[in-house]
């Protein structure tokens, strides 16, 4: 019986020839990460164990990206716990403000996550790295504390679901739309506890940025991990970044899947998820021209990469943000920020009347840098639109790709990208 890519990576890291869905195993880890929300709890747990060193200070990333730049005194205290722990235990990959980026954009960019890796992170969007052909999943702080001490984690081997996408995506349709479409079809628990393996000609033709966006949102369908087999595009992405050896795994042709979904997405339009679930989706032509917004947000671990900013800039160039709208743009990492500056994207955003924030998760989770008031509506390129996600419990979040968010910022309502004239 053949094995899926997920099963092969897990078997290899469990020291077994093969593993089977449902089996409980311990796996060794190649890299682990935590942030300023989950990190302090993990550190508290770690220090309760009573040991004086971490398993390997070169396999841990501490990334204070959520409440930074420190939004208040309590958050500053949380960041300080991380900083002091990093110094005490000589953690190699601690990222101080100015060098810190949104964790799931930062680590692949730094070449710290590679094909074939087995990764855990105390952040639900750790599933992002499956785009590189790694097994990667989000866990809590206690798991992370345990892994800092022992470099392993207990896992149940997930069943795999295969998603095969045929056809060619239309203009303005991106990886974000592919994953929103998928979650809309299967629901927010449609892949609960499962591995989501994304494949087909659409995936093969997508650049890494879109693949990262797709795997990023596997958790929004309840998935344990999202994963894409490495190909030339993956290898091209990692070849100058990789800081260690890696191994490419592929699913066997006779691997077994609990379900296979096959969709032709040639006619897919940009997708918007309505409040208050990522599965509450409509395509743009189904949406009336009367959903007025107070804020548009372009950023996050889902859509804050340079490719996303280029799309937004293409729409915004020569236009002004609607007087009733606040547009907030967050380049996800310092490198992306720098690149956006060199390409003149920041100038386009500022001329349009946008506000540019430092790299931070702040707005996405209603932390800081753009919190919504009672009754306000936002369109956001983020991953979740739960009640109160970006601020007041009576505010609303609509999820979209960067082109829709940018067009909506210009027109003051949820709008299709083709409603705004592109000025070259």
């Amino acid at each position, binding site marked *: 019986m053949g094995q899926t890519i997920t099963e092969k990576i897990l078997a290899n890291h469990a020291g077994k020839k093969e593993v089977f869905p449902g089996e409980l195993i311990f796996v060794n880890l190649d890299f682990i990460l935590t942030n300023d929300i989950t990190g*302090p709890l993990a550190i508290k747990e770690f220090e309760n164990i009573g040991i004086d060193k971490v398993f390997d200070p070169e396999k841990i990333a501490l990334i204070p990206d959520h409440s930074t730049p420190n939004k208040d005194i309590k958050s500053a205290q949380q960041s300080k716990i991380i900083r002091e722990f990093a110094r005490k235990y000589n953690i190699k990959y601690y990222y101080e403000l100015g060098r810190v980026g949104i964790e799931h954009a930062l680590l692949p960019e730094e070449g710290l996550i590679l094909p074939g890796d087995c990764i855990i992170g105390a952040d639900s969007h750790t599933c992002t790295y499956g785009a590189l052909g790694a097994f990667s999943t989000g866990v809590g702080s*206690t798991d992370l504390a345990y892994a800092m001490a*022992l470099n392993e984690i207990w896992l149940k081997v997930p069943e795999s679901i295969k998603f095969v996408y045929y056809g060619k995506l239309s203009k303005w349709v991106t990886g974000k739309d592919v994953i929103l479409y998928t979650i809309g079809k299967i629901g927010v628990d449609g892949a609960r506890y499962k591995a989501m393996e994304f494949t087909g000609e659409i995936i093969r033709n997508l650049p890494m940025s879109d693949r990262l966006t797709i795997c990023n949102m596997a958790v929004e369908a*309840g998935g344990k991990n999202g994963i894409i087999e490495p190909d030339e595009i993956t290898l091209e992405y990692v070849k100058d970044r990789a800081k260690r050896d890696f191994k490419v795994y592929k699913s066997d042709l006779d691997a077994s899947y609990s379900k296979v979904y096959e969709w032709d997405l040639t006619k897919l339009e940009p997708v918007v998820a309505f409040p208050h679930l990522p599965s509450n989706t409509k395509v743009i032509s189904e949406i009336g021209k009367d959903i007025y917004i107070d804020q548009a947000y372009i950023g996050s671990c889902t859509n804050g990469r340079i490719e996303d900013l280029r799309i937004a800039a293409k729409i915004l160039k020569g236009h002004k943000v609607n007087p009733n709208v606040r547009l907030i743009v967050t380049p996800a990492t310092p490198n992306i920020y720098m690149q956006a500056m060199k390409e003149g994207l920041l100038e386009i955003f500022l001329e349009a009347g946008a506000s540019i924030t430092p790299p931070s998760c702040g707005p996405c989770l209603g932390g800081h840098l753009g919190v919504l008031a009672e009754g306000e509506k936002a369109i956001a390129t983020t991953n979740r639109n739960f009640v109160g996600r970006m601020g007041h*419990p009576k505010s609303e979040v609509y999820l979209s790709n960067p082109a829709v968010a940018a067009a909506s910022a210009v027109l003051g309502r949820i709008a299709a990208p083709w409603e705004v004239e592109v000025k070259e």
Partner: protein
Amino acid sequence: MIFRGKALKYGDNIDTDAIIPARYLNTTDPKELAEHCMEDLDPEFKNKVKEKDILVVGENFGCGSSREHAPISIKASGVKCILAKSFARIFYRNAINMGLPILEIPSVIDKINEGDELEVDFDNGVVKNLTTGETFETLPFPPLIQELIQKGGLMNFAKERLKGGKL
């Protein structure tokens, strides 16, 4: 482990932003987190849980973020255990790792009304609805998870593992 208490019911897809909103994540203090547990979903939660301390919920409970602040705030609110149709996976492992008793019993949830008196026997996987007189049985946890629960969570196991212990 046997718990007795009254049922406090909520629906499907209760997410971690509803359990503990991000605006309160600048602390790890269980008492402080408990003050705000579920407040956007049900401002009366804090008072209700004093009388009804077994949470009975629908599908995909705890979906969303990995924040362990969510099970911590629930436990510190005085909730004894959670029965659900299903749990989101990170919440599931967080609860087990920190020793908050949970049970997935999809077919039973709709047969429990808010305020029903329940007895939950985790060792044998038996739930009794003392109000209606019905008894339900479920599969016990796999051995590894049972052992984690018996040891009082993952950190106690870590201490043994560092001395060469195995499950």
